[in-house]
Structures are given as structure tokens and as C-alpha cells.
């Protein structure tokens, strides 16, 4: 990871204790925090003015407290399509995640709020979305993979292949999967090829295309 220029981050969060904690952790980890705002309309104005590398924002925010944070970030992305976004939420719905990613998976992350307490997960997610990757909450992906379903191609995966499938869906690259599982990239590539063949998926170019393909499959 190139750390010569710190990643410039804007934070959207209305709960003061959580906001201060998040900003503190980010600064501690070497991110350049440009500021934090607790209102979606202000947040939007600041993103447009500051053009950060990454926005980390709560989905539920004032003024309406529904998905104002998400709407503000999506609007800001129209102006800055290269900007990474990491959405935080008290609740995570798999179908929400899929819709968000389907819109444009480039540089999108989605984490449960409490994952911020696991600094390694937070830092990894920010770095990934900053680099244009995807970072989806492992718990949501796990729920999606292990939900009850009728017998189908997923049953034919080995345990290892299931694990690899989950990591793909979270947005990890082959290299990151290799590192996580402590196996070679070649071995990961073979697993991926087997998974694709068994599930009848077509090989997509680019990491976020394959995230989408896998999520679409898991959604069925």
C-alpha cells in the first residue's frame, strides 16, 4: 500500500461519541481526515467542496433519518465517480448491499457500524474502497451464503471453495484471498475456476464485476 500520500477522508455521522471515536481512529491510522459532519445536506456540500478520496458515512442521518446519508453520498458520487464510499449502518440488509453494488461497485464498501471497533477491518475497508475495490461486511455475506435454500449447485462446492466464494463476495482480490487463506495465488485461481464452473458463472473482467456475479447468484 502506497502510504506516501495519506488518503483524504470525509466523515458523515450524527452521533457525537461515535463520530469522535471514528475520527480519532482514522487519524491514528494515518488517514487525513478533512472533517466530519452530522447532517446529510451539509455533508453533501462538504464532499462537493473538498473532493475527498473516500467518504465514510452513516446511512441513517438527519434531516429525515431514513437513508439521507446514503442519498447524499450517491449524489456526490455523480460529481466525483472515482471517489470511494464506505457506508456504515446499524443494520445491514443483503438486498440493500446488492442494490448498492449493482449501481456501481467501483470503490464501494458497506460495514456494520460496530465493525469500526475492529480497526484492522476498518482500515482494510477504507484502503480497498480508496483503491477502487469493494468491501462488503463479512457477516452479511456469510448470512447470504448460509441461508436455507433448495438443493442446488452451491451444495457441490467443497468447504474451501465456499470460503473462497465468501471472500470473493466480500470484494477480495485473488491476491488478498491468497494472503488471507495462506495459500498461493495459483491455488486461489484454481478454486475460483472450479467455483465458476460449478455455479455456471461467466468469468467477468475486473474484481467488482465478479463480486456482482457472485452476489447475483447468491441472491437467487
Amino acid at each position, binding site marked *: 500500500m502506497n502510504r506516501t500520500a495519506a488518503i483524504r477522508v470525509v466523515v458523515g455521522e450524527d452521533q457525537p461519541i461515535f463520530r469522535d471515536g471514528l475520527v480519532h481512529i482514522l487519524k491514528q491510522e494515518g488517514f487525513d481526515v478533512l472533517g466530519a459532519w452530522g447532517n446529510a445536506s451539509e455533508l453533501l456540500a462538504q464532499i462537493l467542496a473538498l473532493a475527498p478520496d473516500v467518504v465514510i458515512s452513516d446511512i441513517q442521518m438527519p434531516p429525515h433519518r*431514513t437513508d439521507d446519508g446514503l442519498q447524499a453520498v450517491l449524489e456526490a458520487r455523480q460529481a466525483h465517480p472515482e471517489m470511494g464510499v464506505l457506508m456504515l449502518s446499524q*443494520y445491514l*440488509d443483503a*438486498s440493500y448491499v446488492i*442494490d448498492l453494488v449493482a449501481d456501481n461497485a467501483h470503490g464501494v464498501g458497506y460495514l456494520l457500524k460496530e465493525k469500526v471497533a475492529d480497526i484492522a477491518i476498518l482500515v482494510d475497508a477504507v484502503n480497498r474502497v480508496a483503491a477502487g475495490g469493494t468491501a462488503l461486511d463479512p457477516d452479511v455475506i456469510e448470512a447470504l451464503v448460509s*441461508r436455507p435454500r*433448495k438443493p442446488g449447485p452451491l451444495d457441490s462446492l467443497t468447504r474451501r471453495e465456499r470460503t473462497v466464494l465468501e471472500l470473493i463476495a466480500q470484494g477480495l482480490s485473488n491476491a488478498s484471498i491468497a494472503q488471507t487463506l495462506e495459500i498461493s495465488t495459483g491455488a486461489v485461481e484454481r478454486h475460483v475456476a472450479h467455483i465458476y464452473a460449478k455455479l455456471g458463472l461467466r468469468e467477468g473482467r475486473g474484481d467488482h464485476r465478479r463480486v456482482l456475479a457472485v452476489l447475483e447468484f447468491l*441472491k437467487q
Partner: protein
Amino acid sequence: MKESSGDRIRAERTADQWRLNLARRLHEGPQQQLVDIIIQLSRADQTWTERPQESRQFMELAAAEAQRALEGIRDLVKDIYPMILATRGVEPALHSLALRLPFPLELDVPSNVVSPDLDDTVYFLCFHALIDVPSHDEVAAARLAIVSTGKRLVIEVKFEGNGTASGTMHAWLDPLHHRLAAREGLVEVKVESNRNLLLIIEIPVAG
């Protein structure tokens, strides 16, 4: 269909039962877990200077317990009112509900088949049909389809495998009847070939 006082009393009892159930889940789940967290933190504080290793273990236990409490609250909130229903409507909300059921659910809900003013009604009808159905563990699979005939909205839920559940034991339908009374809708329960349970719910839609 006119609502009798018997219906109203039954509706009230259903609502009270629902509240009691929520209160129990809060007491036994997150509330108890918060108490456990306080105790673990105070033990961490006690051991902090003399046995820091032990103190750290208590903090880790507290953090893990907080995690479980959050999960419990999230499940509870989803049962009260899933936020995805408010922000995205009935179709995504049903997909999300499907992920939490112990059996596979196939959904056939064309987008826009439900008008936004009926989102909540339709969602909670489906919710009660899917959650309250007896013999959950016998259900091998289920299918939920929503069609509109223009004048009526028909929700058809088919459960495979729990059709032996006595057709006369319909107390579980109370929340559905309660909701349907307000909308002048109706529900029909059928048992197919002694195996499948079929639920047909109809509500009139404003033309």
C-alpha cells in the same frame, strides 16, 4: 365484512400478545446482556492494576457480549419494523425477510405490483403468514407470489411439507385476520394432498 366486538377483542388480545412477546425478548436478550457487560467491566476495573492479563480477558468478554446484544436488538428491530421497508418498499423487504427464515423461500413479487400506500399492509400480511405458520421445522420450502387483478391484490403462500398441521387449528391466523379486517380482505387456508399448506390472502385495492 363488519367487524364484531368479538373480532375487536381478539385483535386487541393479539396485539397484547405481541407486546408481551417483545418485552420478553428484550428482557431476556439485550437487557440481560447489558447487565452482564456492566459486571464484566467492573471486574475488569477491579483487576486492572494487579492482574492486567485477567482484566483484559474481562474486557474481551464484555466486547463479545456487546456484539451479541447488538445482534439481538437488530433481529428485534427487524421484527418490529424493518428499516428497509421504509426506505425501499415491500419487495426488497421481503427479500431481506427471506434470508432470515429457516426454510428456503421463493419470491415472485413483480416490482410495482404493490402500490406504495399498501407496502406496509402487504409486508406485514406476508410477515405474519411466513413467521406465524405452524410447524416451521416441517416446512421444506415455501413460495410466495403476489398478483394484482386490478381490483384485488392476491398474495399466495404455499408451504411444502407442513400440510398435516391440523386445518382447524387456526389461532395462528389471528394477526392476519386482525390486519385483514381493517382492509376488508380475506384469507383462505387449504391443505393440498395432505402435504402442502396453501394460504390465499386477498385485499381490495382502490381503483
